[in-house]
């Protein structure tokens, strides 16, 4: 399935390294990750040394600059991967390939927009502190680790860095009990799901003798396992863990509560960055590693998760009266859509998933940016009723929100249309017509829920009284984030050629072996 093959066998490289003692560390190969990590730790140090004398915008700007630097650092690496092919670095623990770079880019974008939103948010809520940004950067570095991990245990540690920081960020609005409640729920269930994932990793280790994904893939293509109980049970347990992280039904139950309770900018980051990292892990483990050999075993499970997520997400979203919670359910339905691409288990499906994740990052961070702004002081006005008449009170905000909602509904010339199109195209290419039809039906059902918000904003007779009275402030950071999101959403919808090619190239350069 993978077009280009790593030139020199990583296994041999590993053997050579092991023989010669300490492995060669190519720092430049993990530059984006290092920048995020160091940015986070340095920010903590600098702010502590300044002892509160730094202006309140300082950590936000620092974070945006750090993430932008990480984003810039991707370009030389991308060129290198395109020239030299995919390779493993850090003693085979990290895959330096187009796939990991693409997802790293998504996570960096998500961090940039999250930080821009946080800047106005923490000031409005009176919760200033550099810790928000430190945790955001470190969480993102965990996400990058997870996306580029070529070893199950490195992936697990990356996932934990990502998640533990996210647990804290979720609970960090100390004035809201719902934030703390969300933090507790996220933590308890996250730890529970992590245990499942880890058990799955353990069983896979027992079945294959390694946690290194390249080794596992090679082992599985060389060896016929006659008694595959351990391996298959490992699939099931790992799928619980990944399913939890990406918010796929029936492991989605945490998502609505946590998305609703978490501070809105954190929700934006969770829906985009964390989901992207989770899918990166899922794709790398299942599609890349197990896809060629054991696809028949895991694909039906992903099929079931995809169908359930699509249905549960759209059906539950329609009955919600809280916009933030509705978007949470809709993110479950989006996860179902991306799972459809995972189910295709092909190069095409993987690049469709990547394109979807990038498009979704723009759409969902944009949507939650509006939610952040509309939440107003206290982050509590998220009812659908609070949006009534927004079209009249703030036509600009309403128009931008409409763009995001229509994009999520999959209207042509927005990013949402093409991402859905690519996904369905990829399963149709695999002959999965039933799944394609289910995905389309659920997209039609889901269209109503986005329309519901649009109708509330524009076609409402009695605008929310509060909306007319109180002034809605759009901080500078949030408006920059909105511009980025709108431009991204429309750009991917109208001239997607470049990004599509990048997504295809990204998948063409993946650390993997031919059997």
């Amino acid at each position, binding site marked *: 399935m993978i077009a280009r093959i790593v030139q020199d066998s990583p296994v041999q490289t*590993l053997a050579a*390294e*092991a023989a010669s*003692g*300490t*492995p060669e*560390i190519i720092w430049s190969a993990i530059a984006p990750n290092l920048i995020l*990590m160091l940015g*986070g*730790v340095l920010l*903590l140090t600098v702010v502590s040394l300044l002892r509160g004398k730094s202006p309140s915008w300082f950590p936000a700007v620092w974070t945006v600059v750090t993430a932008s630097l990480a984003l810039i650092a991707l370009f030389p690496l991308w060129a290198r991967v395109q020239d030299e092919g995919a390779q493993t670095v*850090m*003693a*085979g*623990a*990290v895959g330096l390939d187009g796939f990991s770079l693409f997802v790293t880019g998504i996570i960096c974008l998500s961090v940039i927009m999250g930080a821009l939103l946080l800047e106005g948010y923490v000031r409005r809520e009176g919760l200033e*502190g550099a*810790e928000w940004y*430190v*945790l955001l950067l*470190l*969480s993102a*570095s*965990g996400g990058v680790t997870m996306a580029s991990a070529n*070893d199950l*245990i*490195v992936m697990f*540690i*990356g996932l*934990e*860095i990502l998640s*533990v*920081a996210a*647990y*804290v960020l979720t609970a*960090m609005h*100390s*004035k*809201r*009990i719902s934030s703390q409640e969300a933090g507790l729920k996220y933590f308890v269930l996250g730890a529970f799901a992590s245990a499942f994932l880890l058990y799955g990793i353990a*069983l896979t*280790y*027992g*079945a*294959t*003798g*390694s946690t*290194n994904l390249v*080794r596992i893939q090679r*082992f599985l293509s060389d*060896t016929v*396992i006659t*008694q*595959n*109980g*351990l*391996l298959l*049970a490992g699939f099931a347990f790992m799928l619980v863990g990944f399913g939890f992280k990406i918010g796929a039904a029936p492991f989605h139950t945490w998502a609505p509560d946590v998305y609703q309770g978490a501070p809105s900018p954190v929700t934006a980051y969770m829906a985009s960055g964390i989901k992207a990292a989770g899918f990166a892990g899922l794709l790398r483990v299942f599609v890349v590693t197990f896809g060629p050999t054991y696809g028949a075993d895991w694909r039906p499970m992903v099929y079931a998760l995809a169908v359930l997520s699509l249905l549960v997400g759209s059906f539950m979203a329609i009955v919600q009266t809280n916009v933030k919670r509705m978007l949470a359910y809709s993110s479950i339905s989006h996860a179902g859509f991306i799972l459809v691409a995972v189910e295709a288990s092909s190069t095409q499906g993987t690049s469709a998933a990547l394109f979807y994740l990038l498009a979704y990052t723009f759409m969902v961070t944009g949507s939650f940016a509006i939610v952040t702004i509309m939440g107003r002081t*206290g982050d*509590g006005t998220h009812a659908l009723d609070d949006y009534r008449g927004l079209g009249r009170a703030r036509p600009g905000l309403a128009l931008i929100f409409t763009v995001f909602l229509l994009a999520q509904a999959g209207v042509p010339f927005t990013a949402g249309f093409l991402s859905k199109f690519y996904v369905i195209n990829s399963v149709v290419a695999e002959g999965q017509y039933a799944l394609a039809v289910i995905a389309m039906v659920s997209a039609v059902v889901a269209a109503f829920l986005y329309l519901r918000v649009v109708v509330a904003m524009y076609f409402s007779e009695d605008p929310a009284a509060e909306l007319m009275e109180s002034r809605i402030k759009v901080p500078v950071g949030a408006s920059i984030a909105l511009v980025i999101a709108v431009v991204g959403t429309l750009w991917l919808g109208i001239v997607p050629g470049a990004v599509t090619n990048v997504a295809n190239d990204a998948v063409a350069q993946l650390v993997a072996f031919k059997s």
Partner: protein
Amino acid sequence: MRVEMFTFLLTAAICLAGSAGVVLLRNPVHNALSLVATLFGVAVLFIQQGAYFLAAIQVIVYAGAIVILFLFVIMLLGVDKAEGLDRDPILGQRPAAIAAAVAILGLSLTALLSVGSRVTGQASTLAAIDGSEPNINALAKVLFTDYVFAFEITSVLLTVAVVGAVVLSRKAGPAIDAAEFPEGTTADLLQAKHDAAAVEQGVLEEVATEDETPEGEAETAEEALR
């Protein structure tokens, strides 16, 4: 062989008893102590399988630090009260939990036992254990070669944990969002429903005719729950 088997069975019994204690004992302090028993048991099993260094840190880190942390928090919060375990307020939770767990156990055992005594993986992918060098040397070698990246990034994880703990321990003012949830918690609703049912039953026993009010209350609670 007999000695090994005997040690295993004894330790396994301790482990299982400890885990059962964590689940079944009412007092959190007792739960924590049961956990220690399991942790020690696991440490013994580590030794039995040649993982000497891990056994040591199992005792030091887990039993020594983590459980102490648990006990510390229990004492700090003063929650060392016994928890009522007679009935679960969530209807059907306990039987469903047990059924799900039995299913998971049964199915995983099917998977584990299906391979018989064979673990199918490739042997000694990284390094053999029974080499000439001591366990701790072998472990250190892989940690700083093959797992060096994992080792390095655990530092990030620990940083996150420290920052998180510091942030979370800050004092917070009164909650500002109570008004957003007029219905209260699900637990409150369940309790209201339970109370209403109890009242209704009581009234029914006393005066068979005047049962309208409690029933109404029960309905309200039910509606609220819905």
